[in-house]
């Protein structure tokens, strides 16, 4: 079992899927000879051929639309959008087609495609390269939205996404691509979609997050532990369908909930979780549900990016404010 970074785990899962299923084909900009700007597809064109790891013109709409067409025709396309900031021109395809084909044809046509894209800030990339689009995506009926927070999760969830009979948007936090390694077995085992993962057990407060922010959430949980507060950390992992049961079970146990995400707070994905927790776990709550998110503004350019992202210190402070309620 090799120690892999998250990007290596993505690469491994893609290789495994290409190996296992001839219907799997990758398409995207610079994914062939170049192996992707982050190297997610490094070596795959050489190994599986340029028919299966195929460079496209610079045109996101037709990348998404072609993935829809291939999927309907029975293939398993995995399309890469180079950065999340360039996927907005795919929204029409996701909303009006990918998420609807099964419903509008009463199951006659289906759309088992995957759209992968790097998300989030923290690597000081240029403008429009640090977006967090999950709030928009999770509101689209008929698609699934998944984001891994560890190399092993990336491997297992990406395989699940590719095997899923419905369209999945797979959001890969760039900040985690090379941040840490963990052992990943190339056993072809998928992790379940639609399941949240309890990353750390705790009794006093539930910290809910997904993707890269779980790093700071984990650090915050550690600091809180040192200060005598036992935090449970839940990794949402799949935003749609949302595993409300796991979230509610945790909050019912702890009585407090802080949701942390990087996208702006207003109308973000955290609002749905907060609304559900506040409504369904009302009787268990001893404090209002907290949300610590990106400021309600445009993700700033590199120089202020770190100041925009929720830091461990701010998470600790927000959690402690909730602990003050008794």
């Amino acid at each position, binding site marked *: 079992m090799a120690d892999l970074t998250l990007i290596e785990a993505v690469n491994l899962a893609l290789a495994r899927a290409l190996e296992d299923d001839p219907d799997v084909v990758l398409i995207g900009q610079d994914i062939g000879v170049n192996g992707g700007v982050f190297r997610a597809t490094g070596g795959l064109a050489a190994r599986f051929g340029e028919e299966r790891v195929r460079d496209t013109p610079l045109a996101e709409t037709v990348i998404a639309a072609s993935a829809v067409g291939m999927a309907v025709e029975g293939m398993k396309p995995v399309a890469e959008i180079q950065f999340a900031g360039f996927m907005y021109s795919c929204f029409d395809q996701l909303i009006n087609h990918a998420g609807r084909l099964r419903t509008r044809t*009463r199951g006659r046509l289906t759309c088992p495609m995957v759209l992968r894209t790097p998300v989030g800030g923290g690597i000081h990339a240029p403008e429009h390269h640090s977006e967090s689009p999950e709030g928009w995506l999770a509101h689209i009926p008929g698609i699934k939205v998944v984001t891994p927070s560890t190399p092993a999760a990336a491997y297992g969830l990406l395989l699940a996404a590719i095997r899923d009979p419905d369209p999945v948007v797979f959001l890969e936090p760039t900040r985690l691509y090379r941040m840490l390694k963990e052992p990943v077995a190339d056993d072809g085992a998928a992790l379940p979609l639609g399941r949240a993962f309890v990353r750390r057990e705790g009794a006093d407060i539930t910290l809910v997050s997904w993707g890269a922010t779980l790093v700071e959430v984990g650090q915050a949980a550690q600091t809180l532990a040192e200060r005598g507060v036992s935090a449970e950390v839940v990794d949402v992992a799949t935003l749609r369908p949302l595993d409300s049961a796991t979230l509610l079970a945790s909050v019912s146990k702890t009585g407090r909930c802080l949701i942390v995400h990087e996208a702006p707070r207003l109308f973000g994905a955290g609002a749905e979780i907060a609304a559900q927790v506040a409504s369904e776990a009302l009787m268990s709550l001893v404090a209002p549900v907290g949300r610590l998110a990106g400021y309600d503004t445009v993700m700033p350019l590199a120089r202020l990016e770190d100041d925009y992202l929720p830091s461990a210190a701010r998470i600790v402070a927000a959690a402690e404010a909730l602990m003050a309620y008794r």
Partner: protein
Amino acid sequence: MKTAAQFSVSYHQFLNAKGALAEPPPGLDLPALVPVYRTMAFTRAFDARAVALQRTGQLRTFPSSLGEEAATVGLASVMRPDDVLLPTYRETGAFLWRGVTPVEIFLYWAGDERGSAIAGPRGDFPISVPIASHCGHATGVAAAFQYRKEARVAVCVLGDGATSKGDFYEAVNLAGVWRLPAVFVVINNRWAISVPAARQTACATFAQKAIAGGVPGVQADGNDAVAVRHVVGQALERARSGEGPTVVELLSYRLTDHTTADDARRYRSADEVSAAWAEEPLVRLRALLAREGLWTKADEEALIADNQARLEAAVADYLATPPQPLTSMVDYLYAELPAELVAQRAELAAREGGHHG
């Protein structure tokens, strides 16, 4: 100053507005035009019936294809059954040729999803309302054919207005560079709702849009079923033999309102419309078939009666179709219902059982 590149767009017409066949295309199969004519006539009868149903509140909205029957039926008639059609919404003639049933078409325009759950042809795409957004599906379908080395073609039909969307251009460009087995058929009926072709683009032809994708573009008289079959047939042949995509422009005219929700008198003259009637496709094909001894007055009368009977039966079946259950709203969203939909499904089932609150 040198010339870096040169291009031209050819125009094809065989059967003129009078039904005269100047110089037939090589190997013209005249008897094959009889079923084409029959389906064109049925399409026209279907259209009239659908408009009548709408006027009496029995359909929601309907886009008539009056005057475009040579284009829609003609293009479908040269496709193979296992080619894939990616239509927009005005290709009733193509649907009928390929075996979509009148009941299915009625259901769709009644606002019933079962109209897209067609029994056949299995691989065809449903009607696509967001203009031009299906062009990229065609490149995907064609890429699948190419990858699997299947001699099948993706046929994407769109309107003159649709060519203004970036989706169309992105798809043609991709099809060009990947040499995909795809044919893009632009039915230029001169209007996009109230916008005439001359305000849609500064182009002299819609076929020339192909040049931006490095792809051949041809133009034909879309009211000439012979020309339609010829140019689309050649494009299909090119695609099938690995030579890549073609953009075909079929010149026709929308003889009636955009849909039943529109009133074309607001924006175009009655004169223009009457002039266009002189070019309509049905009469001229009938004239040819009659002249060639392939169609008689008796055939015509029998066809009219037959079409009416088929339509009566279809309307009766359509009107007798039981409603979908409320639960069908959520049943097809995912292969497996997530928790929230399990709950909502139960609520819908309960509502169905009780009163419709």
